[in-house]
């Protein structure tokens, strides 16, 4: 049993939780993830470790309430317990050798994964520019946190209601064209965003790392559900990743695979809306 020590709503759909998990906190590194199971009948759901505090023995998770399990998790409060939390899983983010300047791009709730990576780079003395993209002003998250671990933070919104109007790729291109020499770009967000970022950067020949979020069960290489094609080879995101060279990832295949349970998820979403008292999500 893992106690929820702190809960904060980052926006109407995204929640931050600090969980008492001393053993995981002791080992966790940026880029790794945990798998939680909310109760005896719950599924196993992976979430990136958004932050950790080794002294306090806590790990922070940030999640968007999109599926049944994340919605149920969102119903829990400080003092409540999560039945299972296992981790840290996956390979930690490797800071590219000799990298002096890195652009970290977060899309929406992907900022929860981009933030710890930016922080790790920043703490390692790398110059970090963060570009954080959101659909609109209302769903901007982690602005202060990301600003604290970057030289420059650029917020973009699709509708221009906050920061610069446009997509993260527009801002990235603008920065590169303005003469910023990035040794590496780290892009984390919805699969189409990561695909688009890679396509934009490819002509510049800049190394691009993406963090993938395929469907998985165990997180230890056992089910093979999270297999992704990277450089023509099958990799397991849980043990070989979740970080991969973005220029090598077959994003289209990943999008197909991630849609495997869409109909059942839709059905669950409608179902849960009733049990949680009519919570609706766009």
């Amino acid at each position: 049993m893992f106690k929820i020590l702190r809960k904060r709503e980052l926006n109407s759909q995204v929640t931050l939780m600090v969980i008492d998990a001393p053993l995981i906190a002791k080992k966790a590194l940026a880029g790794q993830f945990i798998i939680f199971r909310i109760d005896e009948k719950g599924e196993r759901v992976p979430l990136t470790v958004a932050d950790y505090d080794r002294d306090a023995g806590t790990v922070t998770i940030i999640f968007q309430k999109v599926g049944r399990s994340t919605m149920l998790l969102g119903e829990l409060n400080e003092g409540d317990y999560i039945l299972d939390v296992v981790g840290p899983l996956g390979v930690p983010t490797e800071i590219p050798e000799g990298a002096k300047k890195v652009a970290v791009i977060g899309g929406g709730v992907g900022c929860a994964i981009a933030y710890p990576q930016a922080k790790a780079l920043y703490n390692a003395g790398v110059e970090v520019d963060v570009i954080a993209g959101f659909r609109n002003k209302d769903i901007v998250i982690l602005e202060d946190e990301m600003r604290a671990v970057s030289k420059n933070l650029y917020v973009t919104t699709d509708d221009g209601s906050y920061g610069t109007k446009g997509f993260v790729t527009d801002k990235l291109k603008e920065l590169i064209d303005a003469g910023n020499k990035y040794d590496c770009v780290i892009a984390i967000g919805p699969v189409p965003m990561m695909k688009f970022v890679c396509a934009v950067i490819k002509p510049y020949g800049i190394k691009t790392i993406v963090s993938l979020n395929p469907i998985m069960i165990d997180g230890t290489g056992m089910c093979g559900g999270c297999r992704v094609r990277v450089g023509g080879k099958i990799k397991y995101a849980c043990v070989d990743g979740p970080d991969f060279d973005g220029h090598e990832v077959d994003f289209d295949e990943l999008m197909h695979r991630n849609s495997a349970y869409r109909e059942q998820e839709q059905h669950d979403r409608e179902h849960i809306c009733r049990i949680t008292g009519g919570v609706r999500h766009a």
Partner: protein
Amino acid sequence: MPNMQPEKTAVREQDPKVRAHNFDEVSSCYTDEEALNEANRCLNCKNKPCVGGCPVGVRIPEFIEKIREGDIPAAYDIIKTTNGLPAVCGRVCPQESQCESKCVRGIKTEPVGIGRLERYCADYMADKAPAPEKPEFNGHRVAIVGSGPSGLSCASDLAKLGYGVTVFEAFHTAGGVLMYGIPEFRLPKATVQREVDGLKALGVEIRTDMVIGKILSVDELFEQGYEAVFIGTGAGLPNFMGIEGESLVGVFSANEYLTRTNLMKAYLDDYDTPISRNRAIAVVGGGNVAMDAARSALRLGADKVYIVYRRSAEEMPARREEVHHAVQEGIDFRYLTNPVEILGDENGRVRAIRCQKMELTEPDQSGRRGVKPIAGSEFEIDVDAVIMAIGTSPNPLIRSTTPGLETNRRGCFVVDENMLTSREGVYAGGDAVTGAATVILAMGAGKSAAAAIDEYIRNKK
């Protein structure tokens, strides 16, 4: 005078048409009368060939003798002296290639139903056996990584000797393949849980959600005061064929399909884990895992389930009873058939599997017949899901995080005759050493390792 009835005493089974749609156990336990009738078929041979066929040397004629005398607790005790998990082994051991293959009765007629009798004793005692007494702690602690058959049997033997044993399990539930792999209809999870609970009563500490290699390394286990470590992490990494189309939606490893079903209970409505419900499914492979996946698919509502196996029925490695049950339930066996490609629709979902016909070649050095494709024999089977059950490999999590642990080219730990790895105090056994094999072999390895660990720690003093 022994009962000379030529066939094994029949066991009551659910009607195939009914059971193909439920997850309840297929076979019932012998009644007292049936068990006695079957026990009377044993000739109580002096040289006990059956015992030699058992990887853990269960004293078979002795326990059967006790059944004949009506003393089931004594029969059970005899089994338990060498086999910690009789309720499991009675159900899932490949008896036809082990104990029962050596049975003298089997030369002319059917062998004694040793597996069924073993299960009878275990089930009979399930709610009668007194809780084991917790032995006095001998002051030494041993860590066991993995709670599958090898880990459980190693833990059981060490705990009985007074060791403080901690079992680390990566999943949220202990039992390993017995929980995630073998389906409820073949091995009820309550049966496995009872065995795990028995270990706890012996004082074994079970820590779930602990992925050793990640949250703690093997070296850190020693730092925490464990004097020896047993690695029984199994062979959990699913193999794929490497053919086109394996990334389509609707292609699963048997591990994924079975884990969703068995461990996560996706077949029950009130559990959250989703599982793909398909119309027609091809399961590739001919082992027990393939049978389990195919029969689970049927129970999950598929109209048509195929087993696609590249050799013939004779070479099929699955337990005979499982094949028999699968045939009864209506699984369509396509022998000498090998997939060459999985075909998808415009949405990236499986629509068919393209196969070619194979023919048998002469036996190789191991005596197993090979196969070669028949030119121009390709054809398609209309399916909307494919399950790959073509074997598994050991998990790299421990070997990649533990310096000095030697593994072979297949990723299996290299051990000596005492199950000792290349690191002092680190022992390994089960599928992590042999590659995918059977429950009973893994249990045997766990037992051998327990004996070796005991000797190692005693000599260290």
